[in-house]
């Protein structure tokens, strides 16, 4: 499964921080994720099975967390990126 840049970033934040609201993801990304586009990306990731969400609190906001598939995809992407970097250093 290929991860887009924004999907990779979201998974990295969720893996490091645990369940987050969309707005927390935006704040943690240091403006690399935009408020207006975050939920379209999260919706797409939810359809792909990379993240899951549940309503928390009374205000109807949803917390997102990575699924097992999301965690595996993120780890695979990390390993792949590491191998590319190693290959580049050797060359």
């Amino acid at each position, binding site marked *: 499964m290929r991860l887009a840049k924004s999907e990779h970033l979201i998974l990295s934040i969720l893996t490091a921080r645990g369940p987050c609201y969309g707005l927390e993801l935006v704040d943690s990304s240091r403006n690399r994720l935009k408020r207006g586009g975050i939920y379209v990306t999260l919706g797409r990731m939810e359809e792909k099975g990379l993240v899951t969400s549940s309503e928390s609190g009374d205000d109807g*906001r949803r917390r997102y967390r990575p699924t097992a598939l999301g965690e595996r995809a993120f780890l695979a992407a990390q390993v792949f990126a590491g191998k590319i970097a190693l290959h580049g250093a050797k060359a």
Partner: protein
Amino acid sequence: MRRLVAWIIDGLPFDPRSRRALDETLLDWAHEEAEAGPGRRWLVGVSGLPAVGRAAIVAASRETTSVPLWWLLKRAALFVVLPATLLSLPMVLLLLGTDSAWRIPGVLVLLMPEWLPTVAPLGLLLCLMWRPRHVQVQPVGTAIIVCAATLLFLGWILPHTNAFLVAVYGRPMADVLGPLSLRYVDEATLIDLLRSINHPGAVSALLRISGLAALAATSVVLAESLHRRIALRKLDWIAAVPMAYMLLSGIVSAMVQGVLPGFFAIAGTAWVQATLVLLLAGAIQRRTGREVDLIRTLRASSDSLDS
């Protein structure tokens, strides 16, 4: 500000995925407003607007790329192109028995586009409203595509076919088409109109072209709102919708042309019609959109549980 934006968005028939993204962005905005102190509240109230605007643009772009184009083209051929061709027939049949009878197929092809701007809004309304339940159309994306296609057609293809028709006959358009002709055929491309924007005629033509594009787009929005409402009810009265649409269209056209001076009446009619259609669609959407979205979500969950 937030309530006004939420009210406007509530009136647009975004698909469930876009709706959810927009709802969550609005919830964030409300949350931030509630968290902010009294001094900062107005700032937060304004700063949420770009985020919602961006969310709407991203959602609309996603919808535009997900529209089932092939299905839409087939339906448009049946509900828009075919009626336009049939409406051109009476004029073409005048050539029967004359020396120019051999020109009938060619003239039919050239005349058909003249009727498309008139037929398109109603045709689109019908083809989208009367679609099978399993066909999912992204309404806002479809409206954007229809708007762009109408602008392209009216601003480029129609002026060229008109020029070609005049060249074939070597006479002005009104003489060629006779008493059945459409009175306000478009003869300049959008680029020509933009170049001569200082001329009042160009402004009027631009308003008319953009108004017809807006009317076609709002017809899509109305069709989706009606489809959602009627999907929950009996289909018996669905035939009344085109009648009501034509009646409303006629009344508005007559009223606008009675109030505005001639030149601007032609330009303004389509915009007034488009605004009324959008308001009507918004009222229907606000009334039924949420319950239909809920039912669809429940159906989808029950289907996934079954499988």
